[in-house]
C-alpha cells in the first residue's frame, strides 16, 4: 500500500519555465474546471495566464464573471491576481473561425474567398473528426508565439478517446497532404499525370467507387478545393509537426485528469503510457471527485453494526421478513402478490418505531456507505499507482455543489495545491 508521490501543483505553477499546461483525460472528469482553477491560481500567484478551453459550457464563462467566451482572449476581472502582479484571460476555441483565419493568412483575398465558399471546405472546417484537435493545437501555437502570456492552460476536446488529442492533428495534416488526395485530384494538375500512368487501373476503380458513393459533385468540390488550397498543403503537416514538437518541449506540462472510477482511470492509464512513449512531459495525475470521511477511524462494518443496534433493518441477517420478499415467486405461475402476508409485513415497521435514535442510525448508515465508496476509490487509485509508481498524484475532494464563481474555482485550486495524497 504505497501511495504515489505527491504532485506539487504550486511548484509547477510558480516555475517560470512552465509555459504550457495541458489538461487531458476522458469526458466528464472535470478537465475544464481543473484548467480554469489552475489558471486562476497561477494568476493569483503573479503569473500572466490565458486559459484556452474547447468546452462550450456557458457555466465556465459565468464562473469567471464573463457572459460568454469567444475566439479572442478576454480579460477576467480578478483583483487578487492584479494585487499579485498577475493577470487572467480566458477564451474558447472556435474551430471554424481559427481554420478560416489560417486560410485568410496564407492566401490572397480572392483565393481565400473561393476556399471559404467551397462546400467541401465548409464540411472539413466544421465537422471533420480531428479539425477541433488540430485547431486547438493551432491556437495553442499562436498563443505561444504571441508571447503575451507567460502561462497557457489548455483543456483538450471531448474526444472519443483521450488519445485522439495526440493523433488527430497529424491525421488532418496527413489527410490534407496525403497521396490519395493528390491521386484523386491529379487530373487537375499537370504534374500528376506522369505518376498516374503507373496506377491507371487502380485509379479508375478508386475514383469509380468514390464517385458511386459520394457522387460526382462531391468529388468535383474536393478537386476545386484542392486546386485552390494547393499552396497551403505542405504547411498543414508542417504545422501539425510543429505543435507536436511544442508539446514535447521543456516548458510544457501534461496533467492527466481522472475521477476514481474504472473507466476514467483506464483512459488515464492509456494516456500516461502514450505520453511516455511519445516523450511528452507528464507532470502528474489529478484525481477529481474523491470521497473521504472525516471519521475514517469508524469502519464501515462497525458503523453498520452500530446502526443496526439502533434500528434493525428488514433484509439484513436472519430477519424473518426476508421470507416475505423472496418467498412470493413460488414458481406456480400465479400473479405475484404485492407484499408478504400481513403478519410478516408488520415486522420491519415495528422495528422502525422501536428505534429511538433515527438520525444517528441514518448518519451511521450514510457513513458506512461513504467508507465503502472511499475504500473502492482507494483500491482503484492503488492499482493505478501500482502500474505507474512514479507518477505524482493529487486528489480533489468531491464538492457537494457545482462551481459557480471565482471563489468556487479558487477553492478547487486550493485543493489541487494541497498536493499531498489525502489518504
Amino acid at each position, binding site marked *: 500500500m504505497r501511495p504515489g508521490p505527491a504532485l506539487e501543483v504550486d511548484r509547477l505553477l510558480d516555475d517560470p519555465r512552465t509555459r504550457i499546461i495541458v489538461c487531458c483525460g476522458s469526458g466528464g472528469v472535470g478537465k475544464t474546471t481543473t484548467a480554469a482553477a489552475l489558471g486562476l491560481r497561477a494568476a493569483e500567484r503573479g503569473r500572466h495566464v490565458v486559459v484556452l478551453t474547447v468546452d462550450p459550457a456557458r457555466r465556465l464563462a459565468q464562473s469567471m464573471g464573463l457572459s460568454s467566451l469567444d475566439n479572442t482572449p478576454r480579460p477576467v476581472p480578478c483583483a487578487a491576481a492584479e494585487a499579485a502582479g498577475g493577470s487572467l484571460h480566458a477564451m474558447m476555441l472556435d474551430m471554424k473561425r481559427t481554420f478560416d483565419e489560417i486560410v485568410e493568412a496564407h492566401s490572397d483575398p480572392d483565393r481565400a474567398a473561393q476556399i471559404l465558399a467551397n462546400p467541401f471546405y465548409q464540411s472539413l472546417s466544421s465537422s471533420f473528426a480531428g479539425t477541433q484537435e488540430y485547431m486547438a493545437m493551432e491556437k495553442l501555437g499562436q498563443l505561444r508565439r504571441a508571447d503575451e502570456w507567460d502561462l497557457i492552460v489548455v483543456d483538450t476536446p471531448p474526444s472519443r478517446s483521450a488519445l485522439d488529442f495526440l493523433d488527430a492533428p497529424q491525421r488532418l495534416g496527413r489527410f490534407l497532404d496525403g497521396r490519395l488526395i493528390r491521386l484523386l485530384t491529379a487530373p487537375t494538375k499537370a504534374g500528376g499525370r506522369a505518376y498516374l500512368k503507373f496506377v491507371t487501373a487502380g485509379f479508375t476503380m478508386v475514383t469509380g467507387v468514390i464517385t458511386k458513393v459520394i457522387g460526382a459533385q462531391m468529388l468535383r468540390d474536393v478537386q476545386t478545393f484542392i486546386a485552390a488550397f494547393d499552396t497551403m498543403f505542405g504547411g498543414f503537416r508542417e504545422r501539425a509537426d510543429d505543435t507536436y514538437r511544442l508539446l514535447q518541449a521543456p516548458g510544457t506540462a501534461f496533467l492527466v485528469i481522472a475521477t476514481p472510477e474504472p473507466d476514467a482511470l483506464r483512459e488515464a492509464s492509456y494516456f500516461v503510457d502514450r505520453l511516455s512513449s511519445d516523450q511528452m512531459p507528464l507532470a502528474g495525475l489529478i484525481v477529481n471527485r474523491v470521497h473521504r470521511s472525516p471519521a475514517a477511524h469508524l469502519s464501515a462494518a462497525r458503523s453498520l453494526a452500530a446502526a443496526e443496534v439502533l434500528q434493525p433493518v428488514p433484509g439484513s441477517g436472519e430477519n424473518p421478513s426476508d421470507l416475505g420478499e423472496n418467498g412470493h415467486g413460488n414458481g406456480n405461475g400465479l400473479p405475484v402478490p404485492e407484499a408478504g402476508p400481513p403478519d410478516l409485513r408488520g415486522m420491519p415497521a415495528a422495528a422502525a418505531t422501536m428505534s429511538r435514535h433515527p438520525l444517528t442510525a441514518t448518519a451511521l448508515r*450514510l457513513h458506512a456507505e461513504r467508507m465503502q465508496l472511499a475504500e473502492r476509490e482507494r483500491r482503484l487509485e492503488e492499482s493505478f499507482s501500482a502500474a505507474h509508481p512514479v507518477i505524482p498524484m493529487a486528489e480533489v475532494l468531491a464538492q457537494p455543489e457545482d462551481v459557480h464563481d471565482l471563489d468556487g474555482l479558487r477553492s478547487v485550486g486550493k485543493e489541487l495545491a494541497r498536493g499531498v495524497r489525502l489518504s
Partner: protein
Amino acid sequence: MWWPGDDSLLRVRPRDTDWEGVRLHVVTGKGGTGKTTVAGALAIALAAGGRRVLLMEVEGRQGIARLFDSPPLPYAERRVAVAPATPTLPGGEVYALAADPEAALVEYLEMFYNLRHAGTALTRLGVVDFATTIAPGLRDVLLTGKAVEATRRRSGGRLYYDAVIMDAPPTGRIGKFLNVATEVSGLAKMGPVRGHADTVQSVIKSPQTAVHFVTVLEEMPVQETLDGVAELRGLAQGGLQLGGIMINMVRPVDLTEEQLQAAAGGTLDEHELDTGLKAAGIEDRRGLAASLAAELTEHAREELAQRAQRTRVAEAGQPCYDLPLITDQMDLAGLYRLAAALREQGAA
C-alpha cells in the same frame, strides 16, 4: 426504501409502455453520465418477455463488451445477455454489435452494388477512411444506416429484432449525427449516398425512433441535456421524436425533510447524535458526532442541489425515469436492477 426490490423484473406483467411502437431507441448523454450502462439496461428491459433486441455501439470504444464482461465485439451480432424469465413471461435475448463505418461501407457496397471484393480492397488501400473523412456525414449515415437496416430486417416473414438500442454519440454531437440527410445533402447533392441517406432519415424521423437522454443530477450534464433537447426540438419539425430523460445514479433520500433542512443549514443536534452513538455502544466517540454531522451536511447539500437540478430537468417537458445509484462495481446484477427500474416506470 426507494426501490421496491431488486427482483422486480420478476413482477413485470405485459402492459403498455411509454414508448409503444418505438423500435429504434437512440441513447445519448454527456460523457460520464453512464450512457452505455443505461443503453445496456434499456436493452435488457426491452428484451423481457421473450423478445430479441440488438444493442449497438458506434464509436469503437468497446464499451458494451466491457459492460457485459465479454471479449471485444467484432462487426457481427453476438448474444451478450439474456433477460431473465419470469413466472408469467419467457426470457429474452440481447444481441450486441460494435458497428464501424469501414465495415458498414463494405457491407453497403455489397448490398447495393455487389462490390464486396472491391470494398475489401478499398479498405486495405485506405480509401474507405478517405471517403468517410472527406464526407463526415457519410460516416454517420453508414452507422445510422446500419441501425436502420437492423431495425427493418425481416426473417421468416417477421421482424428479426423487436427493438434496436443504439449507444449513440454524446449529446454535443447527437444533432449532427441524426440529421444525416441534411449533413450529407450539403456534400452529395445527388450521389447514391444521398438516396441511402434519405431512406435512413425517413426511419429516424418516424414514430419508430425515439431519442433518449441520459443525465445525472449535476449542473453541467443537466444543462447539456436541456441544450440537446432544444436542439433536437429544432429538428423535430422534420418528425424526430424526443424520448425520455433517464436520470442516472439517483441516490435514495435517507433523511426526513426536517432532518434534511437542519443538516443542510448546519443546525443538526450533535448532542442527539452523540446520545445515539452512545446507545449504539460506540465507546470512542471523541469528535465523532461532529464528523458525522459534517457528513450529513454534505449529503443534505448534495441532495438539495440535486433537487434543484431535478426541477430543471422537468423543464424539458419529457418523461423522466429514475435509475438508482449502483454503489458496487457495475455488473450484470446491477444492470438487471436498472432494467427493472426502467420497466417499473414504464420506459420499456
